[in-house]
């Protein structure tokens, strides 16, 4: 379950919908992570670009990894502008037992931050500014750099 939404996420709807969908499937543990835009650096909000084909493949690999542990992962992310105190990201894990869920949510969120093809921009005075200093090169970056 990978959901991409224009602008801010409806967090109560997402958390509730996923819970209702899985509550009778005998998962004892439901872990969720919600990312909300903080008021900092004088921004009005953030804006996101994403590249869906690679994001989907990345997510499908995680679904397989979760399945091997008897678990399910879900994710929702915003595209476009998300204002301060709105939310842009929800991730969740359902698993029979708590240890698997606690460990998967951590690994999933960290891998998401390091690898998912999503680009973040600060919104200041209505202008979109690439958040270069908070961005991380994907593992293996620099392949095309020619060293002379």
């Amino acid at each position, binding site marked *: 379950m990978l959901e991409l939404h224009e602008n801010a996420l409806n967090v109560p709807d997402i958390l509730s919908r996923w819970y209702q969908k899985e509550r009778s499937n005998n998962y004892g543990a439901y872990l969720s992570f919600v990312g909300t835009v903080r008021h900092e650096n004088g921004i009005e909000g953030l804006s996101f670009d994403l590249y869906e084909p690679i994001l989907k493949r990345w997510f499908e690999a995680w679904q397989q990894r979760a399945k091997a542990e008897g678990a399910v992962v879900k994710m929702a992310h915003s595209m476009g502008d998300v204002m301060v105190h709105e939310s842009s990201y929800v991730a969740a894990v359902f698993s029979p037992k708590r240890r698997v869920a606690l460990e998967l949510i951590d690994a999933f969120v960290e891998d*998401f*931050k390091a690898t998912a093809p999503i680009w973040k921009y600060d919104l200041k005075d209505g202008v979109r500014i*690439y958040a270069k200093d908070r*961005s991380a090169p994907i593992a293996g970056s620099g392949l095309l750099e020619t060293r002379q």
Partner: protein
Amino acid sequence: MVRIEFLGPIAKESLEMEATTLHDVAHKLSDDSEVKEWLSTCAVAVNDTLVSSLDTPLKSGDKVSLLPPVCGG
């Protein structure tokens, strides 16, 4: 011809070039002043799969994507 796509904040239209491996792509992009600065921090995908070798073979119609540093969430 392979198609080179620049994702996210790289403000550049996609372009087409002749290339039989990523070595050719690296060589040609190193001459492009708009793209050059991004090469050291970009990951590379061929037909939407991330690759890790310049020897990756390319054929006509392939899509090469450059992915600059990410920050989702």
